[in-house]
C-alpha cells in the first residue's frame, strides 16, 4: 500500500520531482501491470516498493512492513524475506555459477541448506543441467530463468519484474513471461510487472499507468 508518496532526486537545478502524490493499493496475490513511457518513474516506483529508494513523504507498507520506519539493515532484512526482483539486464553475478547465483539470497537470509534449495528452484524452472554453468555460458533466456529462480528462491511475498523481456527476443521473452505467470499462480505471489508493452501488461489482472510521475488511471 502506498499513500501520498513523493520523491525528488538530484540537487539544485538538476532536481527532478519523480514521483508525485502516489496512492496505490495492491492486494495479496494480485498481478499488477505497471505501464508508462520512458522516464515516467516506473522503475523508481518499483525501487520504492522494494525499499531501495527512500521517499520524501508518504507511507509505504508492504506485507505488514511500514518501510519508512525501517533503517537500512531493516530494509535489507525486509527484502530478503519479502521481495524478489527480476531485472531487464538479469544482473547475474558473473563470477558465480547458476546455482550459486540462486543460492545468494538464501545465504544472506542465513538458510543452512541454501545450495540444495537453489538446485530445486533451478530444477523447477528446467535448468538442473545448467546448475554449474557460469552466466557467460548461458543464453539470454537461460540467464533470465536463473534470475527468476533467484528471485523466487526465498519464497517472497511479492515479485517485482522490471521489463523482464526487454533484452530477449520475442519467443524467449514469451517463454519467460509464461514462466513468471505460472510461478505467480502456483506460489500465490503478488506480482508487479513493469513494462512498455501493453499486450504483455494486459495479461495481468490489473493495469496501472504512470505518466510524468503521476498515476493516471487504473
Amino acid at each position, binding site marked *: 500500500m502506498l499513500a501520498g508518496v513523493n520523491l525528488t532526486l538530484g540537487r539544485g537545478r538538476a532536481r527532478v520531482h519523480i514521483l508525485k502524490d502516489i496512492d496505490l493499493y495492491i492486494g495479496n496475490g494480485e498481478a499488477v501491470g505497471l505501464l508508462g513511457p520512458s522516464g515516467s518513474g516506473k*522503475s*523508481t516506483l*518499483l*525501487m520504492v516498493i*522494494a525499499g*531501495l*529508494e527512500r521517499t520524501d513523504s508518504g507511507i509505504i507498507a508492504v506485507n505488514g512492513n511500514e518501510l519508512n520506519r525501517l533503517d*537500512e*539493515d531493516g530494509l*535489507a*532484512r525486509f*527484502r*530478503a*524475506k519479502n521481495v524478489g*526482483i527480476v*531485472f*531487464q*539486464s538479469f*544482473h*547475474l*553475478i*558473473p*563470477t*558465480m555459477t547458476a546455482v*550459486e547465483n540462486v543460492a*545468494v*539470497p538464501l*545465504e*544472506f*537470509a*542465513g538458510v543452512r541448506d541454501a545450495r540444495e534449495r537453489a538446485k530445486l528452484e533451478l530444477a523447477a524452472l528446467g535448468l538442473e543441467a545448467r546448475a554449474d554453468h557460469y552466466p557467460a555460458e548461458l543464453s539470454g533466456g537461460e540467464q533470465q530463468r536463473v534470475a527468476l529462480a*533467484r528471485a523466487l528462491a*526465498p519464497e517472497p511475498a511479492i515479485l517485482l519484474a*522490471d521489463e523482464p523481456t526487454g533484452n530477449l527476443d520475442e519467443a524467449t521473452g514469451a517463454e519467460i513471461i509464461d514462466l513468471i505467470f505460472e510461478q505467480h499462480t502456483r506460489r500465490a505471489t503478488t506480482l508487479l510487472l513493469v513494462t512498455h508493452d501493453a499486450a504483455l501488461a494486459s495479461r495481468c489482472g490489473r493495469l496501472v499507468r504512470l505518466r510524468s510521475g503521476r498515476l493516471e488511471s487504473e
Partner: protein
Amino acid sequence: MRRLRPIVAARMAAREMRGGLRGFYVFIVCILLGVAAIAGVNAVAAALIEGLAREGRTILGGDLAFILSLREARAAELAFLKNQGEVSRLGTLRATVRTTQGEAALVELKAVDSFHPLYGVVALEPTLSLAQALGREGDVYGAAADPALLARLGLPLGAQLTLGSVQIQVRATIESEPDKLSSGIGFGPRLIVGDETLRASGLLQPGSIVRWQYRVRLPVSKQSEASVLAVTAAAQQMFPEAGWEIRSRSRAAPSLQQNIVRFTQYLTLVGLTALLIGGIGVGNAVKAHLDRRRRVIATFKCLGATGAGVAAIYLMQVMVLACLAAIPGLALGAALPFIVAAFDLPLPLAPALSGDRLALAFVYGMLVAAAFALWPLGRAHDLPVSALFRDEIAQEGNWARPRLRYAVATGVVLALLIGLGVATAYDRRIAIIFVIAAAAVFVLLRLVAQLIMLAARRAPHLRSPVLRLAVANLHRPGALTPSVVLSLGLGLVLLVTVIAIEGNLRRQFLSALPEHAPTFYFIDIPASETNRFEEFIRAHAPGGVLQRVPMLRGRIVAANGIPAEEIKPPPDVAWALQSDRGITFSDALPAGSQLVEGEWWPRDYAGAPLVSFEKRIADGLGLKVGEIVTVNVLGRNITAKLANLRSVDWQSLGINFVMVFSPNTFIGAPVTSIATLSYPAGSTRLQEGGLMRAVAAEFPGVSALRVRDLLDAVGQTVTTLTYGIRAASALTLILAACVLGGALAASQRQRIYDAVILKTLGATRMRLLAAYALEYLASGAAAAVFGLLAGAAAAAFVLTRLMHLSFVFIPGPLLLSCALGTLITVLLGLVGTFRALGHKPAPILRNL
C-alpha cells in the same frame, strides 16, 4: 535475517575472486614490497643481534671483561679476577710508529699477554702463533700489523719500525682478529705487540691514555648466565671504587649493538614510508575494484545484503589478498639476511627465521591494508542500487562519503598502526616525530592535490584545445592528480630528506671542514714535556695556533646520588654513561663554550670540587645546577657539585669536554695533555706530513692524529650506513611508480573513451599526447616542488634538532632527484596513454 555470518561472507568473497587478480597487481606489489622492506630490515637486524650474542664471548674475548682507563688493576682486584677463572690482560692505546726513513703513522696499538686470545684465533699471514710473531729476538720485538699499515708506509713484511723507544719487526700481517668488533671505530691500522714490548717502549707514562682490559674465561662448570651475573655483582660489591666498566659476553659490543638497533629503527621508518606509499596504491586498487563491482554490489543489496554485509564481503577479500601478498613479502624479507650473509661482510651475521619479527612485519602489512581499504569499503556500504534499474553508466568518483563507523574504524586501525610503530621503536620520540611528519605530509599533499584541482576548475577559458584538455583532465572526477601528487610526493619527500642528510653529513665530515677546524690533535703529551712540546711546535709549525688542555678519563658513577646503572637517559645522551669519557679541568670558561646557567668558579677557587656540564647531557641525566655528580677517575670516586652548564659548539672540532672540573680537583694526579694545532692560513699535505714525522721523532710517546684522516674514517662509516638507507629509499620510489602505474591502469577505460571520442572529433594523436603530457607534467612538478621543500625541511629538522649539526641546502642532487621524479611521472603516464591512443575508434564506439 541475522547478521551476515562470516562463513557466508567468506564464501561470497571467495566466489568474487574467481574473476582473477586483474586490477589487484599493484595492490599485491604494494603490500609485498612494503612487508618485504620491514621484514627484511628486521630480519637483518635480528641476524646481527643474534650473531653478536652467539659470538659474544669471542667478540668480547672472554666471558667477562673488566675495562680500566689510565691505570692497571690493583693487586687485590687482579687476585679477585684470577680467582674467577683464566685471566688475559691487554692494553690498547693510540700510538705513532716511525720508519727508518722518518715516515710516521698512527696505529691502534694492542699489547697482549701470552693468554690472548681466550676465545677464537688471531689469524696471521704467514701462519705463525702469536708467541712466534710477537716474541723478542735480540733487541727487536716482534709485531703483527694490519696489511694497511705496511701499504701506507710502503714497507714489505719483515720491515722494522720504531715504537716509542723500541725497535719492532712486523713479522706477520693480521688476517682476522676474533675480538675486532668490540673495539669500535679505529683511527689507524691495528698493530699487535706483546705486553713486554709495550712496557719497554716507554709509552706508558703517568696519565697516558691507555685502556687496560682484563678478560676472564670462566671455568666450564661456571659458565651459566647466572655465574656471569654473580661475578659481576661480586666485583661491584667488593670494589665499589674500582671505576671499571664490566662487560659480559651478552653485551660484548654495546655501542655496535645500539647502533644496529638505531640503524634498524631508521630503516624501519623508511620501510614504513614505503608501506604508506603502498597504502595509497592499496586504497586506489580497492576503490577501482569496487568501481568495477558496482553492479555486483548493487545486486547483493537487492538480494538482501546489508551495507555492512557488502563491506564485510569485500573487506574479507581485501584482507585475504593482503595475506597472500604478505607471504611472499615475508619470505623475501626473511631471505634478506641469508643474501647479505653471502656477501661475506665483517659482521657476525647469524641468519635465522625469527617468528615474532616476521609476525610484526605481517601485522604492519595487514594494518596498512585495512587502514587504506576501510574508507573506500565504507563508501560501498551506501552505494546506490539505482544502477541496476536505470542502466546508467557507472561513474567513477561518484561515491558518497563513508558513514561515521568506517571513519572511526579507519581511525582505530591508524591508531593501532601508530601505536605499534611507536611501541616497537628504539627511540619513541623519533617515532612520534615521524608519525607527525608523515601525517602532516599526507595532509599537505592532499591539500596540494585539491589546490591543483581547484585551480584547474577555476582556470579561465583557454583557447588552445590541448591546454583545455590538459586542464580538464587535472580536475575531472577520477583524475590522476591526487594519486600522482600523493605517491610521488611522499616518495620524493623521503628521497630528498635522505639525500639532503647524506649530503650534509658528507659536507661536514669530508669536504668542507669548519673554518677554524684544527689540522692535528696531539694526545698523550706528558706533563713534564709540555713546555718543550709547545716550543717545538712553535719552531716547526710557524703560523700554527696550538691549544693545549690537560686531559684525564673518568666514568660517571652516579648523578645526584642515583647510580649510573639506574639512570634512564634519552637515547641521544645515553653514550655519556656508557664508558669512560675524556675530562679536563680549567680555571676559565673553555673556548668554544658558552655559559648558559650558573656561574664559573673564581680563578683561585680552592673549595670542594666543582664541575661544569654540557647542558644537553646534564638535562638528559636529569642534573640541575647545585646537584652532585660522582665520577670515577683513576680508581677513585670524586664527588663534585654541578656549578654551571655550558653550551658547546661540537662542530668546531676544537677540544671540548662534557665535563670540566675546577683545577683543585685533580691536584697531584698524573695528567697528560691533549692539544690541537690549527693553521689559520691553511696548510699543505707536505707541511702536515713533515710535522708529523718531526713530532714522531722528537716525542715518540706523543701521538699525532690528522683530523682529515679521522674524518675519513668516520666518513667511511657514514657511507656504509647510507647504502642501506639509499636502497630502502629507492624502494619507496619504485612503490611510488607502481602506485602511479596502478592509478593509470584504473583510469585506462576513461582514457580510451576520451581518446576515441576526441579522435572521432578530429584530434590528432600528437595533440592528445601533448595534452596528457602537460597534465602529468603539472601534477608531477607540483609533487616534485612539494617533495623538495618538505624533504629539505625534514632534513633540516633531523640535522639541526636530532643530530645537532648545521644544515645547508645543496641544490644539485636535490633538484636532479625532483626533476627525475617528474620525468618518471610524465614517461609512465605517456606509456599508459600511448596504449589508449592506439585503439581504433570504431569497435569502441560500437560498444559505447
